[in-house]
């Protein structure tokens, strides 16, 4: 078979693995949360059942074209991130479609889904959606500041914007990981990761019990199913990005699963301890300590 076709099929298989691992990871984290509060929690297979149910609802209604396209944009953001991140280092099959400037493209894809979702959710006409969108966009703008500073620091350190090359530079034992060679950038990025995952101190976009659930308030059935599928992909893709940038990448799927689990667990760990911020607290928080650490990371490598 033609190489481009086999490559495409392998990438689809990778997407399948990532989706399922993301769903398993989310149910595991919900179980961990439940254990912290003394409950047993949902069965580990609950996300799949929820998904089947969402796709099987008989009534679907729309509020207009953008309402349809919103979840598709969001899914594009997740799948786009996945497509350009090398999953397993040194394996041409699992390095997906990464190329020399993919880091910039991925930073863009992080924001892309959010913008599409903003357009779609505001067509739903729910006031709570509008509040959630304004919170989400303003918070994500400030999350981007420390994250971009960390990425620039990495670009100066390794003199490249290719994720594959950054991973290649980290091979050769745990001491060559960016975590040790550039600790300030790692700290700034890991703090901004808390906001990107949207767990507890920074979960004011969806803010359950406060603004019902923010942007997806009007979404149901298949729309919500698409959003949930994207959530699973996006979480693994984001964790895989940080694994590649700061923690030496993965030599196999097993290593990827362990590392993404630990990176995701970091945000859940913080989330079970701290209550929710208000939007002005969250925005100020990101612009203080993480931003200063990010600036230090750049100054050190100038």
């Amino acid at each position: 078979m033609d190489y481009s076709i086999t490559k495409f099929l392998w990438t689809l298989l990778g997407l399948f693995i990532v989706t399922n691992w993301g769903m398993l990871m989310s149910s595991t984290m919900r179980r961990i949360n439940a254990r912290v509060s003394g409950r047993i929690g949902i069965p580990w297979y609950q996300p799949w059942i929820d998904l089947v149910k969402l796709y099987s609802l008989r009534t679907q209604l729309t509020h207009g074209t953008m309402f349809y396209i919103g979840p598709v944009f969001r899914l594009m953001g997740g799948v786009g991130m996945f497509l350009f991140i090398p999953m397993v280092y040194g394996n041409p099959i699992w390095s997906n479609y990464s190329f020399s400037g993919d880091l910039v493209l991925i930073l863009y894809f992080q924001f892309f889904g959010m913008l599409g979702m903003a357009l779609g959710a505001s067509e739903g006409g729910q006031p709570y959606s509008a509040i959630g969108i304004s919170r989400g966009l303003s918070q994500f703008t400030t999350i981007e500041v420390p994250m971009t500073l960390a990425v620039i620091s990495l670009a100066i350190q390794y003199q490249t914007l290719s994720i594959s090359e950054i991973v290649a530079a980290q091979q050769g034992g745990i001491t060559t990981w960016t975590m040790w060679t550039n600790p300030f950038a790692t700290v700034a990025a890991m703090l901004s990761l808390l906001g990107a995952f949207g767990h507890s101190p920074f979960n004011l976009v969806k803010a359950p019990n406060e603004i019902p659930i923010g942007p997806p308030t009007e979404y149901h059935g298949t729309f919500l199913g698409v959003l949930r599928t994207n959530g699973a992909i996006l979480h693994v893709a984001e964790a895989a990005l940080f694994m590649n940038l700061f923690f030496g990448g993965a030599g196999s799927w097993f290593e990827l699963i362990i590392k993404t689990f630990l990176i995701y667990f970091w945000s859940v760990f913080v989330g079970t301890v701290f209550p929710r911020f208000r939007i002005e607290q969250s925005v100020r928080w990101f612009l203080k300590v993480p931003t200063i650490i990010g600036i230090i990371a750049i100054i050190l490598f100038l």
Partner: protein
Amino acid sequence: MEKNNIHKFEELDVDKFLAPENEKRSVLAPDGSIVEIDPLKDYFCQDRPEELKPRSGPVEKFLNWARAESLWVLGFGTGCGSIEIPPLVTPRFDMYRYGVQMRPTPRQSNVFIISGYLSVKTLKRAIRSYEQMPSPKYIIALGSCTINGGMYWDSYNTINRLDHYIPVDVYIAGCMPRPEALLAGFAKLKELIKAGKAENANEYARNFDWYKANQKKIIKDWNMPDFNW
């Protein structure tokens, strides 16, 4: 005589209960033309609900299994019985074990727990919420107030039989039933769904006129479209 007639607005042409933002108005469009807007017709769906036939055979069986194992409950407490719902999410009863989860919006929920008496004012909200839920949808009626009015049976402001207004799948008797009874009710509802007997959304569509007539008999300030999802 007229003073005692609490429903006197019914006889007037003007709807005194209509919210200002729902009044008819004309708006000047950018091209200079004048557009008539009737929010009750433009912003809400006026179509009657339709019967949506289930799929046949093992496919529907599988989907019913998924629907039964993933019950999303609308977080809307209507009477004193809603105090029995919070314990369900705490360690002692933990309904998440059974695939029952709370959802904050009617669009994403399948189960509506009418938890106790329904005052006339709340009935209106309950109907709107029920009609916004996507089909297939189920109703659990909690407490004796929903069966025959319970201790409010001769109250001037509450309804007595819930299933005259919206179709009920499972009744849980008691005043108040404990959370265990509610869990048993969920188990019963799961049985019904898996057996394909929980098709009350279609029942509602089939007897739509009867339900609407009953609802309008009670709700005097009917200032919403007849079918508003």
